[in-house]
């Protein structure tokens, strides 16, 4: 009972912090200075139609690099906590029917294609590396759920993950050498505004982020899913 009382007090405290914030919302119509600067300069400077992408990949690019590193650390920690003991195979409990297996195998390449479409067009349309990576991970999840495959090749997964991470940093360093600074995408030609090959290295960086995020999320899913021992006992 005393625990519940303390919880109510903590809740009231949080509400007291949030309430003035909700009541005194800023009402001005104009955007903050930084935002209007980005909106004014970004299309001319970087040539990307999607301003959110410009901010994520270039202006706040260092944050994104750190964020991808956090994602990597979390994936590694999940994998470490739920390490396999060696005699387990990732077989689902139920027997998938033939229809389910062939349907999963048929849809998988199309989902991957859609994921690639999303991250290649991150600078033109809504979407980008994070969303595309998630769609790719979902495609692999479909294979797992439909029972088309039992396990993934971990060597290939970690190879894709570390190679794309390495290439991300390499592209960032190329910006330092041939353009104005770290993560500057302007060492590649600007191209025509609104077409696919434009905005310098932004599509390259976002594609690499997409591959990396996809491999990492797949690592989380693969570590979390229920493993079955070889003898058929649930782990």
């Amino acid at each position: 009972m005393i625990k519940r009382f303390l919880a109510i007090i903590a809740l009231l405290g949080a509400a007291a912090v949030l309430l003035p914030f909700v009541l005194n919302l800023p009402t001005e119509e104009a955007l903050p200075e930084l935002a209007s600067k980005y909106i004014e300069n970004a299309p001319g400077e970087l040539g990307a139609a999607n301003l959110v992408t410009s901010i994520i990949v270039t202006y706040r690019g260092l944050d994104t690099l750190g964020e991808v590193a956090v994602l990597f650390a979390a994936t590694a920690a999940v994998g470490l906590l739920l390490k396999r003991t060696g005699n387990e195979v990732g077989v689902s409990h139920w027997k998938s029917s033939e229809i389910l297996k062939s349907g999963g195998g048929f849809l998988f390449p199309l989902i991957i294609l859609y994921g690639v479409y999303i991250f290649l067009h991150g600078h033109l349309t809504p979407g980008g590396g994070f969303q595309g990576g998630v769609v790719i991970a979902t495609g692999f999840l479909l294979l797992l759920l439909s029972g088309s495959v039992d396990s993934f090749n971990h060597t290939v997964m970690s190879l894709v993950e570390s190679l794309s991470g390495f290439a991300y940093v390499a592209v960032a360093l190329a910006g330092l050498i041939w353009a104005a600074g770290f993560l500057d995408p302007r060492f590649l030609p600007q191209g025509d505004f609104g077409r696919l090959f434009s905005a310098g290295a932004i599509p390259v960086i976002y594609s690499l982020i997409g591959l990396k995020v996809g491999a990492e999320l797949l690592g989380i899913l693969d570590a979390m899913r229920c493993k079955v021992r070889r003898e058929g006992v649930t782990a």
Partner: protein
Amino acid sequence: MNIFIVIILGVLMLAAAGTALYMKSLSAAVIAAGAVSLLASVLYLLLAAPDVAMTEAAIGSALTTVVFLYALSRMRGTKKEDPRD
């Protein structure tokens, strides 16, 4: 017009969040938490943030739910039931 949709979505979100915390069955609670994310992604779309809406729909309501369900399937067979949950 927009404001009514926002109010309806907000009320639905709060209801789903309450359901997620007070549902007896854990898997139903996980699905309700996924519904909160799905409604949030519709709100983001109304707030003119399509990038965030896409991310929230794909991650918040699909992958998070799957990760929760995978964790639940590994935690089956709880001996003691929580009388309050």
